[in-house]
């Protein structure tokens, strides 16, 4: 394991989410071991690692969908004991209701919170426009492409106005071109929404492209091996990121440290 390089570490003053000494044991498998990680407010942090490294497990523990075996999670200083209104989740398999229209799917989070129909539909319509699905409100999930379905999932997560968005490999089930468009839109979203994004991915390029901070997890049992904060290309336009020397260096460096874990 490489030590954390001094230039990649940066003092974090304000964390939206803090993970402290979290362990997770499934039967006799130790999925996470004594994991500590800070997620700076208003930034996008990626959890990157080889498959089976527990990144989705960590995300679900932060979401309150899975209990941690030990350790604690704080969101805005509040201890996590279950799902809460301060977090919303974007699912890898979209998890849309097949029997509900786009409008009802996007408004579903608000529906569960007891928001009146006209109000929640107005909010949902706003976010449907924001993710670029205007005109599809009456359509059903099976009439949409994979990319559009995930936009519905994203709009649903945005419409409940949670401070922390948890994205579990959201683009892994969409095709390459849609994925690139999504990544560009996500950068825009992080800039506009002033929310904290926690993003699980297994794609090194994707993580480096979209993240303010990348946490590299190594498996069995999972722990944070390195935290990388890209500095020079974050403010460049989306077209120039992929040829930035720092971008290419970081991609190479991450691959070098993950290579030995790929079976």
């Amino acid at each position: 394991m490489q030590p954390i390089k001094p230039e990649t570490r940066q003092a974090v003053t304000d964390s939206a989410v803090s993970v402290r000494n979290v362990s997770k044991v499934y039967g006799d498998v130790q999925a996470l071991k004594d994991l500590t990680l800070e997620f700076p407010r208003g930034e996008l942090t990626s959890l990157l690692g080889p498959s089976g490294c527990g990144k989705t497990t960590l995300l679900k523990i932060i979401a309150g969908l899975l209990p941690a075996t030990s350790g604690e999670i704080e969101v805005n200083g509040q201890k996590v004991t279950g799902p809460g209104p301060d977090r919303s989740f974007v699912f890898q398999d979209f998890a849309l209701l097949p029997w509900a229209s786009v409008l009802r799917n996007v408004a579903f989070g608000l529906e569960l919170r007891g928001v009146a129909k006209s109000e929640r539909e107005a909010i949902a319509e706003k976010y449907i426009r924001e993710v670029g699905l205007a005109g599809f409100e009456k359509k059903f999930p099976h009439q949409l492409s994979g990319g559009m379905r995930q936009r519905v999932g994203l709009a649903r997560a945005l419409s409940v106005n949670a401070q922390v968005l948890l994205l579990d490999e959201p683009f892994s089930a969409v095709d390459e071109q849609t994925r690139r468009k999504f990544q560009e839109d996500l950068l825009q979203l992080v800039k506009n929404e002033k929310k904290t994004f926690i993003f699980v991915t297994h794609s090194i390029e994707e993580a480096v492209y979209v993240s303010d901070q990348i946490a590299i997890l190594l498996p069995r049992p999972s722990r944070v091996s390195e935290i990388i904060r890209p500095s020079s290309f974050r403010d460049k336009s989306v077209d120039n990121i992929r040829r930035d020397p720092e971008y290419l260096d970081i991609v190479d460096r991450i691959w070098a440290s993950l290579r030995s874990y790929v079976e």
Partner: protein
Amino acid sequence: MTRHRPLLLKLLSALIVFGAWEIAGRIPVSYAFPTFLDSMAALARMTFDGSIFVAYAETLQPLVVGVAISAVFGIGLGLWIGLSKGFEWLFSPIFIVMQAAPLAALIPILVMVYGIGLTSKVFVVCIMAMPVIVLNTASAVRNTPASLKEMATSFLARDRDVLLKIILPAASPVIFSGLRLGVSAGFIGAILSELKITPTGVGDIITYSRSIADYPSMYAAIFSIILLAVIFLNLLEKLENVLFEGNNRGYAAD
């Protein structure tokens, strides 16, 4: 034109079946097999003299009561078995045995316990209809996509929301197919009970017509009960479409 195509196909298939029946009756394949037209004439006669309505007033009692009990308790029990982890081993075998048991052989026992009245007949209908409703409901509930339940939980759904907004709509196609199978089995049970316990209603028309060799009336009665079952199942399908509109819009499987 294309809009009416399903209807046209249905009419065409009816025409072929009834045509074949008519031809088979005219050959005749058996002395006891009347033609389609003779049977329809007998049906018209029974309709006009009102005897068919008197018969159905009798037959529908155990049928409606039995099907209603089976639907309410069957879906309720199925939900319970499907939702709880521990009860499957306790209840499923009962319904699997009920489904497999040769009902005609059980009827003497039922008659011994509950007599020859309505109770026994309702029991027969329930034994026929209930197992498939319970088993379908339970397996539909158990197969609710875990990711949908997880999604609802992450958006702060209470247990009641998960049941009403996720589990029931997701399970409804399979629950309804169980209901359709259960209702058609209930029709079989109702007629069986009238043939095996006491000849009343439509069962009486069938038994009596056969004993006096009035085969057109016998087939008319059989035809009418099939017709009624088909109409009822179609109504059930309509109800499903009204209640769970999105379900016939296909599933986004991936």
